[in-house]
Each structure stands twice: as C-alpha cells, then as structure tokens.
C-alpha cells in the first residue's frame, strides 16, 4: 500500500469520527476500543465508554495492550464497575446512544452475520465465534456503527445467517413488527474505503462517502449488491497527522492493532 496510513488506521479514524462527545457509547472488543480512545483524546473527552464486562465511563490507559477489555488498563478510572446483566439492561432501557461492532458479512439492509458461512447451518463451510454481544448492541443501541473490511465476499445480497438484526427485509416497520425497539438499527458502516448509511425510506444501504483517491465505482465493484448512492457525496479524509500521532505514539506504539504501512 502506497498510502501513508494502514487500512486499520483509516477505519479506526472513521469510526472515532462518528463518536460524538457527551454520549454513552457501547464499545466492542478490539478495533472499537482503539477508536474510542482516539475519540476521547481528540474530540470527545466526555464520551462515556460502556463495556459488556461492566465498566462504565473508563479512561483507558495507554499504550493500549492487546486482549484487555475487562482488565485494569481498559477499566481504569471508571465511573462505575458493574456486570453484564446491568449493562445490557441499561441498553434495553434506551440509555446507550451508540454501539460499535465488527462483522463478517453484511447485506443491503444491514443485517449482519458473525456466525457461519454456507447454505446449511448444520454443515457450515466456515464457522465463526458467534454473536458475542453484537445481537444486543444492534437490537438495543439507538445507533450502531458496523466496522467491516471492504471485500466483495463481505457485502452480500443475503447474509448466510442473521446473527444480529439490521432492517430485516427492509419493509417499513419490519423491526418494530418483530418486537425490536423502535427507532434503532444500523446507522453507519465503516470500511477501509467508504462510509455508508441507510435510506430512511427503503432502508437500503447507501454510500455516503468515499475515501479520497477512490471513486464510487471502485467501491461498488467490491460489493456483491449495488447500494444506493447519496445525492451529495462526502469525501472521506485520510487520517490526519494528529490522528496518526495519537494512534502511533500514544495508543498503539507497537503497532499490534494498527499495523505498519508499506513505506515504514
């Protein structure tokens, strides 16, 4: 890659940019943790991190250490330490503004799969770890950001398995009819090249912006289905120097998560 940043760095920055200050944000394992620290350091110092392991309002220590979520460095200086049932109860009550998740597959209505690939559940071609807390997040948080690599096999017409609910079949009120909380659902999809939202009416995935240097066509050819394209396209800026400095110097100096660019 000839860019001055890695795909991971861009995705983390995009994700962080979507985290508003003064919000309660459910943080999933891995990349979302890094994005949350970045957001807190740059523009969202009063964002409240919430973890399924029970930490609320933590101010994670850096450098970030891999594998830590319930550990002392990630839960440092929390406002409260509680447990999983309490956290998901508060999400169900409507207290969590934003959730951030990874996924293996996604379809045009934002349904996500993190369970298995193949036509037959009983004989999966490939098995993945399963929902984790993803189902809760996509069910309960007011908005959910999904972070996914930009690969054709991941943007599919129909996911092999609906692990966590998007807009289902896209019909009006489909989530509400099923008993899911009103006004929730996938909000943004962050990839290594693009940013998507979902159309208010048709619930279809919609390209909102493309990383500078790429065209919409570049994006579409890496997708199995054709999304809508927003009337006004946003140009997504590469990571800024300040974002990269915080990522590389403060958060992940060993590059365990963000990786190295081809130049380095």
């Amino acid at each position, binding site marked *: 890659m000839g860019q001055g940043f890695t795909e991971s760095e861009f995705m983390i920055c995009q994700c962080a940019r979507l985290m508003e200050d003064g919000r309660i944000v459910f943080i999933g394992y891995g990349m979302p943790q890094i994005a949350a620290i970045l957001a807190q350091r740059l523009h969202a110092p009063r964002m409240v991190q919430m*973890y*399924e*392991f*029970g*930490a609320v309002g933590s101010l994670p*220590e850096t450098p970030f*250490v*891999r*594998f*830590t*979520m*319930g*550990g*002392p*460095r990630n*839960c*440092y*200086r*929390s406002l409260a*330490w*509680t*447990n*999983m*049932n309490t956290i*998901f109860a508060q999400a*169900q009550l409507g207290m969590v503004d934003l959730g951030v998740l990874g996924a293996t597959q996604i379809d045009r209505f934002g349904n996500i799969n993190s*369970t298995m690939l193949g036509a037959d*559940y*009983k*004989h*999966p*071609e*490939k*098995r*993945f*770890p*399963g*929902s*984790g*807390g*993803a*189902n*809760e997040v996509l*069910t*309960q948080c007011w908005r959910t950001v999904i972070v996914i690599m930009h690969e054709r096999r991941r943007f599919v017409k129909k996911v092999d*398995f*609906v*692990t*966590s*609910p998007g807009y*289902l079949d896209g019909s009006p009120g*489909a*989530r509400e009819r*099923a*008993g*899911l*909380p009103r006004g929730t659902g996938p909000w943004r999809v962050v990839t290594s090249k693009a940013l998507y939202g979902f159309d208010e009416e048709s619930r279809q995935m919609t390209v909102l912006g493309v990383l500078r240097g790429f065209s919409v066509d570049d994006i579409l050819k890496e997708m199995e289905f054709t999304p809508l394209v927003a009337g006004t396209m946003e140009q997504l800026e590469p990571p800024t120097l300040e974002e990269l400095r915080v990522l590389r110097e403060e958060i992940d100096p060993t590059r365990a998560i963000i990786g190295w660019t081809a130049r380095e």
Partner: protein
Amino acid sequence: MDVLQAGIGEFRVEDPDQLRAFMRTEKRREMVDKVMPEAEAVRRYVKDGDYVSFDFSSFTRGPASLVREIIRQRRRHLWFAAKFTLMESTLLVAAGCLRGIDVGFMGLGNLLARAVEEGRIKVTEWTNGTLTLRHLAGAMGVPFLPTRNLLATDTLTYSGAKVVRDPFTERPIALVPAVNPEVGLVHVHQCDMYGNARCFGPGVSPLETAMASKRTIISTEEIITTDDIRKEPAKTTIPYYLVDAVVYAPFGCLPGGAQGMYEMDTEHFLEYMAASGDEQKMAAYLEKYIYSVASHEEFLEKRVGVARLLELKRQATIKEGYH
C-alpha cells in the same frame, strides 16, 4: 400469550422443583472448611456429561487452572457455556472434553471452527447477553426471563428461546430458558475457607453463576479469615452456602490476569494462538501446559517460573479500586 416462534437449538429444561430439592439437600448450610486441592474438587464435582459454566473471561479473572484440571482429568461429553471465551472452548474441544457449546462468543482458532464445521461439536446459538440472562433466570429459580434481544434473527432460530405475545403489551417478546449448570467455576480474589468470596473489579456474572449452578467451585488468589469477611460484608460477592469447594490457586488465571494482582501473560497467549489453528500444535500445547504437569502448582513451577511470576506481578501497577 401465544407462542409465536420456538428456537430449535438443543437445551435442557430444568424442573424448578427438582432444582430446589437439590439445593435443599446438597448445598451445605453449615460453615464447614471446603478448602481442597483442585484435583479433589474436580474429581468430586465435575462428572462426564455435565453442563459447565465459568466466570468471567479468558483474559481477566478466569478460572484457568480449574479448566486445565478438568482437561487433566479427561472429563468427557461436557456442555460448555461460552459466555465469552477466547481460549477455554478451544482447549476443551482439543482435549476431547466437550459434546457441545452454548455460544456466546466462541473463540478462538480454526481448530474449534473445524470441530463445529465437521459436526464433532454441537452448538446452540445464544448471545453473550442472553446466555448471561439465562444464568440470572437460573439464579432466580424461575424457568425463563424475557428479553427484546434475539428477535427476528437466525440466532433465535437456532437457540432455545421462544417468542411469545406479551400479555401486558400484546407485543412480541423473547423468553430465554433458565440455565442451571451442574458446575460453575469462578475464580476470585479472596475468600474464606467456607467460600465467602470477593471479586474485585467489573465482571460478567459471578454471583448469578454461583447461584444458578448446582455445584460451585471457587478458585482463589488468597484465603482470608471469616473475621475479615464480616468486617466488610459489602465486599462479599458470593456467600459461602452457594460454594461447594474452595481451591487455593494463586496465579490461577494464568495466562489471563487477576486485576490488581498480576497482568495477563501476553507471550503465553500468543503461543496459544499460534497453536489454536492446528491439531498437532495444540496437542503439543496441551501436553506442555496440562498433561505433563500434575497440578497448577507444578505448572507454575515448571512452565512459568518465579521470574515470570514476579514480572507479571510487577506489571500490575494499577491497584486503584481492586480491594
């Protein structure tokens, strides 16, 4: 209150009255010394075919030494609650201990994935939240609890949940069945010889797991006096009468960490991850860290060593709040 949909995943319905009868006769009310070696605790309380649950994670305050002892004793046909595992599921599958897994989050590695793909391990789909909620139901002595999670997904289809029309609002809601594990494994920071136990820091569900389980094995970093327990009753996470065995297991979470006491052993995790995709490498890992040592103490002595223990203790610089 019609049943609108019923998941087809494998699960067991516990009769609440049989559970109560067990709790009445098998859970000792007297405060008796329950401290015993891990080998004895596992021999007594973990049987082939049992449903086993643990708290809370592979990285933090997990009962790793007890899981290794189960493998060492070669238990078979267990069903495992993978609320959030990144290591235990794989180790137990690789060692041939499991018949099935309640998923949760079932990490990590291709070895585990292949076992499911090839049908050697059964799975029932849940989520971290609903699997934990099932423990709460089990802890409350009710057959189910309601949730808005799972609805409208294939996860529900392959779970044991049922969707009903709520008689109060007339809207669909999911009911998840209680789980009452035969054995709950909980690692704690401190407990007394009777099992009054303290966990410091956030967690998944130590109390729910201990309440829901028919047998609870506690492994502990430190054994303290009951007098100390009585001085700070708010710190008691699990009361003694829920506990069947207390195993003294300092550094028992390794390669995970215990908050405020020692950090996780990242190098060990990387070694494990390198082995987690390959049957032969994993067999070597199991031999090295489990079968070839007779106990947790020998594991610490021969496979970790004093220098590493001291280094991991040194790394635990954040003490704030963990007491």
